[in-house]
């Protein structure tokens, strides 16, 4: 079964979504991530969606769920690289992803995670 790769970068995990996901793939990612966070005691998760030119309610909910799950496991989630057209569409759709931190790119997202972790 195809899976979306999860990279370990120090204390953080990086997920780069580059494919047009079908629902099952998204759910598998959710499961894989929670397992990896648990196994590695990761302090943060970076989700890079700069390659996604569409985010619908299913993926939006997945992101929200990942953010919630991570928090329970003592990890922060940062969503990076959302494209303008996607942002406008999500707002129109009424999906504002409350509680999900965002950054412009992986570099900034990393910095944000490091600050957050340091604060704790």
């Amino acid at each position: 079964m195809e899976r979306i790769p999860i990279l370990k970068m120090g204390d953080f995990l990086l997920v780069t979504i580059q494919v047009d996901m079908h629902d099952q793939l998204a759910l598998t990612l959710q499961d894989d991530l929670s397992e990896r966070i648990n196994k590695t005691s990761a302090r943060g998760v970076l989700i890079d969606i700069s390659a996604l030119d569409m985010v619908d309610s299913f993926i939006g909910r997945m992101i929200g769920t990942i953010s919630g799950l991570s928090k329970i496991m003592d990890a922060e989630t940062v969503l990076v690289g959302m494209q303008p057209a996607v942002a406008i569409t999500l707002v129109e759709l009424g999906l504002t992803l409350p509680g999900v931190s965002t950054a412009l790119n992986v570099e900034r997202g990393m910095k944000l995670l490091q600050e957050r972790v340091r604060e704790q």
Partner: protein
Amino acid sequence: MNVRSSGTQAINIEQDVVLARQTARKLATECGMRLIDLTKMVTAVSELARNTMVYGGGGDMDWQILDENSRVGLRLTFRDDGPGIPDIKLAMTDGWTSGSGLGLGLTGAKRLVEEFELDTAPGKGTRITITRWT
């Protein structure tokens, strides 16, 4: 108004939702839609195709490229012979914000397109037609 081209594809399994998105993207590009309008359309298609598969028990997506004077339109119809929508008001509720997952989020999809028609009744299946013009 003139139908330049048309087609249909089945939406029965998960992968079909992805295919529906890809078809919509291809058609919208063919119409010459701006990126933001195209993105809204493809997103609406994703929502409605998923509904057809999950709540309608599978169905079809019919598409048409329309020529009207100097503008081009993309019209998609999602139809299924499922149970139909008993409570239209509930269906138009944003399911994700209420958290119960009961709403079908049709109002959200409606906001993404220019024309939206819902035709449904319990036991009669569902037909939803969306249109966007350049």
